[in-house]
């Protein structure tokens, strides 16, 4: 196909050509970045926590006033909860993943350090905590039964003398002791804390601070009173989760002192995850909608403009047909013209996409736009252009040669 006649025609319609190229360029830039953002959100939504989420349910009870006997009540609660059929393990924990409670502390490698080496979130969990969460110990060992001590509101022993063992998430262990085995090392978090084990993954309850810290966590053994924690149950069969939650609520209502046991504070971990990522899901859907509508608008623009050009050039098309051009050649003419316009738009659009990405990077914590999104955007727009132009181009090809002999 000869390109020169197409170019000279386009040159006679400079403004319209510029407009359609600009429109395609903007669409390309927005679509590339939107696809990238959608990818980022989807990746976030699927981040693993390291927990056996599909088998976990959580419930929280609120005390009414002071309960001096809370530790004993909690022990009774837990044995009642463990006795529910279908419950494989149960424990109490100070903060749950995707929950609103959230403790942060600093870790030092030396006892006399002023500034901590790293900031991490600290989980305190009672007996069976590792089995309940479904954490995978990749190095060292889980806590021994005798390491779970009762939580004390006002510790009588000074922190220096406490030597609670800790288990680290692998990411944190790697951050503190790069390339070494963390097990057997000593940390200074709350007194002197020997590292007894490393789990492959454990994350913060919520995103806090830099995303690189998301999987920095320590776990400490402590039998908490119910007033300071949330009960976690690991069930044998995920299908039983709602039934078990109901039974558990009933069990807690009938056991122990009068407390506030509300079904509002009971949910499966999957429900918790779902509502935690609500905003991200909304944003991803919104971006998908915008992309689709944007592409439809652009397609509409191409159809509209090409239709006008076809109408405007009806006489010329007729003359070409009379001079021996086949229908196929007329069709090809408009398809090639569209390919050129879209290609120019894409070339400009890629620069624009890159510029928008730079802007987003400076304003949000976002990585650079991976290059693979550019060809994806390009292919999408090329395909869109060809689909959009097909209908007007076919109308053009259908112009009878006899038109040439009539006056306009």
């Amino acid at each position, binding site marked *: 196909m000869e390109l020169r006649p197409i170019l000279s025609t386009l040159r006679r319609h400079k*403004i319209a050509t510029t407009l359609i190229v600009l429109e395609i360029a*903007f669409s390309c830039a927005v679509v590339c970045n939107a696809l990238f*953002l959608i990818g980022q959100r989807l990746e976030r939504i699927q981040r693993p926590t390291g927990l056996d989420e599909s088998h976990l349910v959580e419930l929280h009870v609120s005390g009414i006033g002071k309960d001096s006997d809370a530790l004993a009540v909690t022990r009774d609660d837990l044995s009642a909860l463990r006795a529910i059929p279908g419950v494989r393990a149960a424990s109490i924990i100070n903060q749950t993943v995707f929950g609103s409670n959230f403790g942060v502390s600093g870790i030092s490698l030396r006892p006399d350090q002023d500034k901590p080496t790293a900031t991490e979130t600290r989980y305190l969990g009672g007996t069976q905590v590792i089995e309940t969460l479904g954490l995978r110990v990749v190095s060292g060992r889980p806590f021994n039964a005798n390491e779970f001590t009762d939580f004390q509101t006002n510790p009588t022993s000074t922190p220096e003398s406490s030597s609670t063992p800790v288990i680290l998430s692998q990411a944190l262990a790697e951050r503190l002791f790069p390339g070494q085995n963390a097990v057997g090392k000593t940390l200074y978090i709350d007194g002197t804390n020997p590292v007894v084990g490393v789990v492959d993954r454990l994350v913060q309850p919520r995103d806090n601070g830099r995303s690189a810290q998301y999987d920095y966590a320590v776990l400490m053994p402590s039998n908490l009173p119910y007033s300071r924690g949330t009960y976690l149950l690991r069930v044998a069969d995920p299908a039983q989760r709602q039934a078990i939650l109901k039974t558990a609520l009933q069990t807690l209502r009938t056991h122990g002192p009068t407390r506030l046991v509300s079904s509002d504070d009971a949910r499966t971990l999957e429900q918790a995850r779902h509502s935690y990522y*609500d905003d991200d899901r909304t944003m991803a859907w919104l971006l998908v909608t915008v992309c689709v509508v944007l592409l439809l608008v652009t397609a*509409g*623009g191409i159809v509209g403009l090409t239709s006008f050009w076809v109408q405007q050039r009806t006489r010329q098309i007729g003359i070409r047909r009379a001079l021996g051009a086949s229908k196929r050649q007329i069709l090809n003419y408009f398809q090639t013209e569209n390919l050129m316009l879209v290609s120019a738009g894409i070339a400009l659009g890629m620069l624009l996409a890159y510029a928008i990405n730079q802007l987003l990077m400076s304003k*949000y914590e976002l990585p650079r736009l991976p290059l693979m999104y550019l060809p994806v955007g390009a292919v999408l727009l090329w395909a869109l252009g060809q689909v959009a132009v097909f209908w007007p181009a076919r109308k053009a090809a259908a112009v009878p040669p006899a038109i040439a002999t009539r006056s306009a």
Partner: protein
Amino acid sequence: MLAYYLNLALRSFRRNKALTALMVLTIALGIGASMTTLTVFHVLSSDPIPGKSERLFYVQMNALPDSQYDPGDRDELLQMTRLDAESLLKQGHGKRQAMMSAGSVVILPTAAGQSAFRVESRYTTADFFPMFDVPLKHGHAWSARDDADHARVAVISSKLNQQLFGGADGTGRTIQVSGQSLQVIGVLNTWAVNPRFYDLTNDEFGNSEEIFVPFSTAMDLAFPLSGSMWCWGDTPEGKTALSAPCAWLQYWTELGAGSDAADYRRYLDNYIARQHDAGRFKHPGDLKLLNVMQWLDRNHVVPSDVRLQLWLALGFLVICLLNTIGLLLAKFLRRSSEIGVRRALGASRRTVFAQYLVEAGIVGLTGGSLGLGLALLGLAIVRKQPADYAPMAHMDLTMLLATFGLALLSSLLAGALPAWQAMHVTPAIQLKSQ
């Protein structure tokens, strides 16, 4: 003349129904998306306490020991220690001042058949109510004297009053709050400030707290706390003790209409200097005094997703406009011969320009009206979202006018170039080719 142009425009629309519909729809989508996101942005970034926001200041200071002080470390949400907050409160240098924290407490029912429930609570000092213009329906708020006496009193919201006393005046009644008896002395009228600027460490948007208790009383009764607390040392007496090395309180001050912030700043500088003298720390103390809007701005209260959506929608509008310009241009220039005839018959360039601008304007206004409908639909969808600011997404008069402004502006913008091109059609050539 305008009536004639309108008539011409209508004829033109009738000739190209599909194309006209496409242009109107494009503009409507662009306007609808932009106005939805602009309205959300407008609502979230508006002044929560107009008329007073200039005079209310959030006080921040860094009371870390020198060994842990890092001048590069800027914590935007940094709160006050109890020691500093109580000292400043006692000195009372501003017109009004209040320190506060929050939590959630369990309320026991007053009538049989009800069950206990949990509500959000605020622990604060007497000036809180006049300072933030909190409206009271029954009774009164507590006084500084009650603060000093650790009085067992509470002010409750009208919603809680409804729940507990069926809407009858609850003042004078005693309620059980986390196992303790408190006397209700006041009931609020509906009060919701959004964003809840006075404490950004808890939910930023939503209803106000259901129960307000004097800070000293809440500390006596060890009511549960929520929000953020940062401790940098051992806390043998507990994290809420007066001497605890923990930053966890919000401190607000109201300055008089005439007085200026610089004077209050000098007073705070002086306070820091006295801490230096007392040997508490030597670092500068990172004093900050921010009024409501500065405070909200610094803490990025408008969620970053909302900003992103706004930019996305404006980008979308630009593309829709480019699309409309292209289509209008093609449409107008196809009528070159018609323009040629009009010009040859004596129409000036200006009248041709006006005629085509009217046509573009009608497309724009029709698209704008449809876009308003889309924006209302969009806002209804936003309100269905789980985000905590969602229920606030309503269009107000300002945004309604802005919608039509934007629609008219964008259609004129879209129409100007094609109309300009149309008016420059050379009549002679057009007539010759007929």
